[in-house]
Each structure stands twice: as C-alpha cells, then as structure tokens.
C-alpha cells in the first residue's frame, strides 16, 4: 500500500478501505480523499508515499482542535464532569485522570454520582483506595445531584483543587437519563456558578459510527469540552474521532491504553494518525 510509484485508482481504493476499516466512516473518508485528490493535482504528486503523507497531514488537521480558553484565575475547585454511554470506561478513566493530577501535585476529590448501577460506588471506592484518592459517596440509590452538591461544598471548604464527578453510564437516546445529567450539571452550577469547568465524554475506541451520534446527543444536552478515548490498547483504531472533531470541533484530550492507573496518555494527533494508518 502506497509504495507504488504512480498514483492510480487503486491508491484511492486502498485509502478508502484503510480509513473505513478504521471506523473513520464513509462520509469523512470521502471528504479526506477529495481533499488529498485535489492536492495531488495542485502539487503534482506522483509518489504513493507522498499521497500517504498528504493524507496524514489532512487527518492531523481535523484532529487539532483549539482547546477553549480555560479561565486560570478561578477559585478552586476545578470541576470536571465525566459522562458517556454504558461500559465505555468512565470510572476507570476518572481514577487515571485523578492519579495523573495527583502526580502533578494537585489535591483531588472524586464524586461517586453513579448511584444506580450495582456495585458502582464500591468499584470507585476500591479504585480510589488503590490510588490513594478520596471518594465522596452517599448510599446506593441516593440522588446523584445531592452527592454532587455535598462533594462540591466539601471541596470548597477544604480548598481541594480538582473534583471529578463519575456519572452512571446512559444510552443517549433515553431523554429521562439525559435530563438527569442536565440536572447534575445544574446542581454543580448551584455550588459554583462557573462549574462544571470541563465536561469529558468517555468514548470506547471500539465504537463504530454510533460514536458520532453519541457525541451529538451529549453535546446537545450538556455540552462536551473534551473527549477521553478509552481502550485504544485493543485493535480498534478509534477513527470515529475524526468524524467527531470534524463536525463538532471537540478536542480529544486523553487516550486510555490499558486497565492500570498509569495507562493514560495525553492525546497526540500525529501519533494517533500514524497508528491508524499503520
């Protein structure tokens, strides 16, 4: 692939297969191919390897989304709300994020606002214990808003620097569940009018075209400021993020590359694209 000297029709077929097989989606794939085809004409590209380089550049272009201005002189805590569909990796990713903030010398508090799923609070407590991070929780079945409110009051009084809220997994088409999330967001705003400062969508890298639909719904409901792409240590390429960045301009902030505390990296567009095209 791409090592042939001429740029013929087969090159574009191979490109299409590569991108679609990586879950980029047919629509974003066609857009990328059109862009590179134009470049080939304009720049008189005649080497397969140069076509490959042009494609990678076009993909990086889509993925580099400016991170919105983070107001720096706000009083603590910085409040991060973490959301996503069931089983995507929210709880695990939250503890990874907390661990990394702790390593930067920040004080962190986690909020067990998934009061619904069996043993969800237990899971977060055990992960928190392992990582030496404090969890604020109520009993199972409690109102998630109440837990969030309590936690933010505690964080304010203790001058904790970061609060990360774990929420229950939810199918984005269930409006009552999306309303519950909007309520959690409002409660955070009641404790601190500028909160939440970040809303992170955790996306499973094995997700196909539905990932774009998920991002649309969550953005519509509460606004998403960044994406945590989990489970990239598998064989799925996570190409759906290209469609998400292209349409919604949401930055990918982190990737999850395993189940351990340290298995998290800051998103690097070039590295991601290189791995996808490999």
């Amino acid at each position, binding site marked *: 692939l791409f090592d042939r000297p001429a740029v013929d029709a087969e090159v574009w077929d191979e490109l299409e*297969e590569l991108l*679609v*097989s*990586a*879950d980029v*989606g*047919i629509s974003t794939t066609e857009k990328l191919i059109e862009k590179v085809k134009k470049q080939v004409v304009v720049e008189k590209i005649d080497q397969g390897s140069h076509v490959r380089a042009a494609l990678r550049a076009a993909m990086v272009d889509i993925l580099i989304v400016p991170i919105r201005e983070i107001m720096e002189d706000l009083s603590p805590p910085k409040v991060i709300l973490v959301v996503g*569909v*069931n*089983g*995507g*990796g929210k709880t695990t990713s939250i503890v990874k994020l907390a661990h990394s903030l702790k390593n930067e010398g920040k004080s962190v508090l986690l909020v067990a606002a998934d009061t*619904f*799923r*069996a*043993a969800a609070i*237990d*899971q977060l*407590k*055990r*992960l928190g214990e*392992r990582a030496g991070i404090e969890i604020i929780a109520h009993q199972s079945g409690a109102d998630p808003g109440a837990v969030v409110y309590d936690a933010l009051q505690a964080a304010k009084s203790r001058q904790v620097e970061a609060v990360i809220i774990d929420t229950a997994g939810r*199918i*984005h*088409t*269930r409006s009552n569940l999306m309303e519950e999330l909007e309520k959690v967001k409002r409660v955070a705003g009641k404790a601190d009018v500028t909160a939440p400062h970040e809303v992170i969508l955790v996306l*499973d890298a*094995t*997700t*196909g*075209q*539905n*990932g774009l*639909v998920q991002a649309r719904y969550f953005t519509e409901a509460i606004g998403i400021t960044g994406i945590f792409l989990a*489970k990239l*240590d*598998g*064989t*799925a*390429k996570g190409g*759906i993020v290209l469609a998400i960045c292209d349409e919604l301009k949401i930055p990918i902030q982190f990737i999850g590359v395993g*189940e351990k505390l340290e298995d998290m990296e800051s998103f690097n567009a070039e590295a991601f694209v290189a791995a996808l095209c490999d």
Partner: protein
Amino acid sequence: VLSDKLNQVFHLLGNKGRLTEKDIDEALRQVRLALLEADVNFKVVKDFVTRVRDRALGANVRQSLAPAQQIVKIVNEELVVVLGGEPGRLTAASQPPSVVMLTGLQGSGKTTTAAKLARHLKQTGQRPLLVAADNRRPAAIEQLVTLGKQLDVPVYRESPDMPGRDVCARARVKAKEMAATWVIVDTAGRLHIDEAMMDELVQMKKELKPDEMLLVVDAMTGQDAVRMAGEFHSRVSLTGLILTKMDGDARGGAALSIRWVSGVPIKFIGTGEKADAFEPFYPDRLASRILG
C-alpha cells in the same frame, strides 16, 4: 432510509423501460453506503453486495416496474438468510447441570447479561447458579452478588485472591451441591490480543467444558468486530453471540459481520440495564435495523 435513497436513484435514472447493469450498480452503491454506515465490515459489505447484485440481475430487476422495492426486498431477504440462527435457544447438557460461559471485551455487558440469563432460565423453570469468575475488576464479584440477590439467584463466589480458573474448577461441585440445573459463568473482560488473558480463558474452558460459550458483543462495535470475534472463536470455539445495548440506536452491523465471517449464531439481545431487558434474537428485526 434505503428505499427512499433507491427511489431517488431510479427517479434520476429516468423511466427508460429497461435499466442497464450500470443503473443497478448505481443503486447498489446506496446499499453499500447504508451497510457501511451501519458498521457492517468493509470486506463483508463487498461480498454481500456482490451477492445482492447477482440476485438482482438474475431476478431481472432491470425490467421491474418497482426496481427500488425489489432491491430492498432482496437485500432484506439476504440479510435474514445470513443472520438467521438459533434465536433464544441454549444447548443443554445431556445431564444437568448445563454450563454457559460468557466472555468478551471489557465493558461489553457480560456481568449484567449473566444476571439476565439467570432470570431468563429461572422463568423457564430452571435452577440457575451464577459463578463470579472475574477476580480482576474491582468489585466485579460484588456486582454479580448484588444482581443475584435482586433476582433471588444464588451466586457462587470466592475471595478475589482465587484465580478464575480455580473458581471454575469448583463451580460444577457447587452446582451439584445446590442441585442447580444451569451454571452461568461471568468472566473478566479481556482483549483478544492479550496472550495471558486468552490463555486463562482457554484454561477456564478446559476446566468447565461448557455447553455454551457465548461472546457478549456491544451493538455499537465498529469495524474491528470481525477480527475480535474471529480471535475469540479460534481460541475457544464460540457457540453463540449475545448483542447488548440494543436499546441504543447503533445499527448493529457488527453482528452481521461476525455472523458472516465466523458463522457463530446470534442467540439473544440485551435491550436495557435491568434484568428483564433480554430477548431472543430475531433475524428480521436486526435486518431492518441494519438497513436503517
């Protein structure tokens, strides 16, 4: 919707009495797009559309008065033929207890599905025993114990220091002790490329000799479904698939891909988080969902 797109194609092609092969190919492009958008595997789409093309030409769709409808009908029929399997039927052992083992990627819905299977079997008069063989994920055992309590189904568990394989070794004895007719084993989520974990799975299977080895797959899985399922199938010979989170709006094309390439039948679907959100699989329903 596919039929609308096809109608548009034939409308643009005009009423010239008899369509050419090229016209049919233009229509098939829309079929291909619909399947790719539904997460059907790239290579599977290619082979599937070829199959549809052969039938469309053979059925003389070119002379049809309603070519769009005919093509949709052919696509639907071919999808149902491929998807058809053994909906909702579990293979029982000749002597109880029968054993079902669940496996799959992290977060696909195994633990929740184990509880659903237990409830389903209880409803049909069986005596299920749940086995908590995931000693890796924090509170995985507690999760299954909680679900078992909610259903009044016994859960066999050990401390998390005991490896999954040893739990499996004792599971049959436990089942006999409790006169359980079905044993449902929940295992840790794992990657098909994790040698150690796939080895553990093979060992657990050797220990238990399950009557059913079911792969739990998230309905929103994309193109990687074929490789992933192929890997699991080659290591532990799957007897069936359970497609979860079908209450979402993912089209579920991954299921078609897995079925096409591995031949493993889809047995059940999960349609929610509660234990009763569980149905036998119906090929015609998934077919129309994939078509969008």
